[in-house]
């Protein structure tokens, strides 16, 4: 893998002897497929790229709480309500694991928060779609968390140690998310005609957006190659996507429902799953803020932050008081 010697992407600049030694150590660690830890020397481009990827990931977990939190009060039973609360709480946890991992790269929490709330940072486009019916809780768990898992499992081996470790923790928790969603759909699919229709409708709406969660085709994804050379990304977007399609194509049969994709088939020759063309114009529009729920999600996030201000103030005041007491004693 000769291209890894250019992994800094900054070789045009004149390197100090320390940077040169650092780059060599970094390259050797990547070459051995070992892990980079926070205090290691790393190329600026690596630090920047990971900060962006990890913080976007954290923001997605945080914003991702909203479509489901929206249904907590209307869950059809106490059991389902408890499950949904636990899932949303997990997503908050995922956001926090990722924020603290991102901080090890040198950007503090308040800056990261601010990037999200000022609208400068991106998060996964999927969360800008509305959750219209109870069946959407099923489709989100099965398809959205499912796609997230397919994306995240290889990230457990990301070259940046804190990222990989956060992903291990997250992946362990995600599997319940996908199962509970699948079981919501299974129950509806075996229910009344209307319930079955509701389940099918939810799948129809979430199928394409879930496939787009893997990102544009790698040919159109400029950062993919570099990310692979750094051992952050392990598989191409298209490869992960087709693998995921293959899994859900089987799973949907258990539900007795269908995927809204007339072109879906397994290609014996290439061993790949073929799916329909996705609407990348829509994807770009939604990512840039033009989705059905972008402004609602951002407004809710800011509101939650502002409404929580008094709690943070009280905690700070209490800590200050306690410390003063200690100093007097």
């Amino acid at each position, binding site marked *: 893998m000769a291209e890894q010697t250019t992994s800094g992407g900054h070789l045009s600049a004149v390197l100090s002897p320390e940077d040169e030694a650092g780059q060599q150590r970094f390259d050797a660690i990547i070459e051995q497929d070992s892990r980079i*830890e926070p*205090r*290691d*020397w790393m190329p600026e481009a690596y630090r920047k790229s990971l900060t962006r990827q990890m913080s976007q990931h954290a923001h997605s977990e945080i914003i991702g709480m909203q479509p489901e939190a929206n249904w907590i009060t209307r869950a059809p039973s106490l059991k389902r309500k408890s499950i949904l609360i*636990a899932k949303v*709480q*997990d997503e908050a*946890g995922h956001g*926090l*694991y990722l924020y*603290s*991992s991102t*901080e090890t790269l040198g950007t503090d*929490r*308040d800056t990261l928060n601010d990037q999200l709330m000022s609208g400068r940072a991106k998060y996964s486009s999927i969360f800008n779609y509305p959750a219209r019916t109870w069946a959407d809780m099923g489709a989100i768990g099965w398809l959205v968390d499912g796609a997230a898992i397919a994306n995240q499992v290889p990230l457990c081996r990301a070259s940046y140690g804190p990222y990989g*470790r*956060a992903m291990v*923790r997250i992946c362990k*928790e995600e599997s319940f998310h996908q199962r509970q969603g699948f079981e919501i759909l299974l129950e509806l699919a075996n229910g009344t005609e209307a319930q079955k229709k509701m389940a099918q409708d939810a799948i129809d709406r979430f199928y394409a957006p879930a496939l787009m969660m893997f990102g544009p085709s790698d040919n159109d994804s400029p950062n993919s190659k570099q990310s692979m050379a750094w051992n952050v990304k392990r598989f191409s977007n298209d490869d992960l996507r087709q693998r995921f399609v293959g899994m859900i194509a089987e799973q949907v049969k258990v539900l007795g429902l269908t995927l809204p994709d007339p072109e879906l088939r397994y290609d014996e020759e290439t061993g790949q799953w073929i799916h329909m063309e996705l609407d990348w114009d829509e994807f770009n529009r939604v990512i840039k803020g033009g989705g059905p729920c972008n402004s609602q999600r951002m407004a809710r996030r800011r509101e939650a932050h*502002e409404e*929580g*201000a*008094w709690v*943070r*103030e009280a*905690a*700070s*005041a*209490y*800590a*200050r008081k*306690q*410390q003063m007491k200690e100093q007097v004693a």
Partner: protein
Amino acid sequence: MTMSNTSNNGSSAGWPLWEVFVRSSRGLSHVHAGSLHAPDAEMAVRNARDLYTRRNEGVSLWVVRSEDILTSDPDAKDAMFESPKGKDYRHATYYTKSEGVKHL
């Protein structure tokens, strides 16, 4: 970073970072789980409970302020950890002549 830095406009700016260690069951050591921000140690423990032990992951928690941890210099690790090199006789596998002797 002193506590008086904690801001009073509802920002958590200045809340120190804490490292969290979880003992997964009796008889095992506390192992590093991750980190979090909290205004004081007590809140750090409470938050750690919610964040790192939602599924019976632990029976005991430690929190310690990140800035109180002294790390060995990663750049000097060769010099730092060099001394055991060439000292194979510290390992049982060095002693091959006694191989096959029972209970040894």
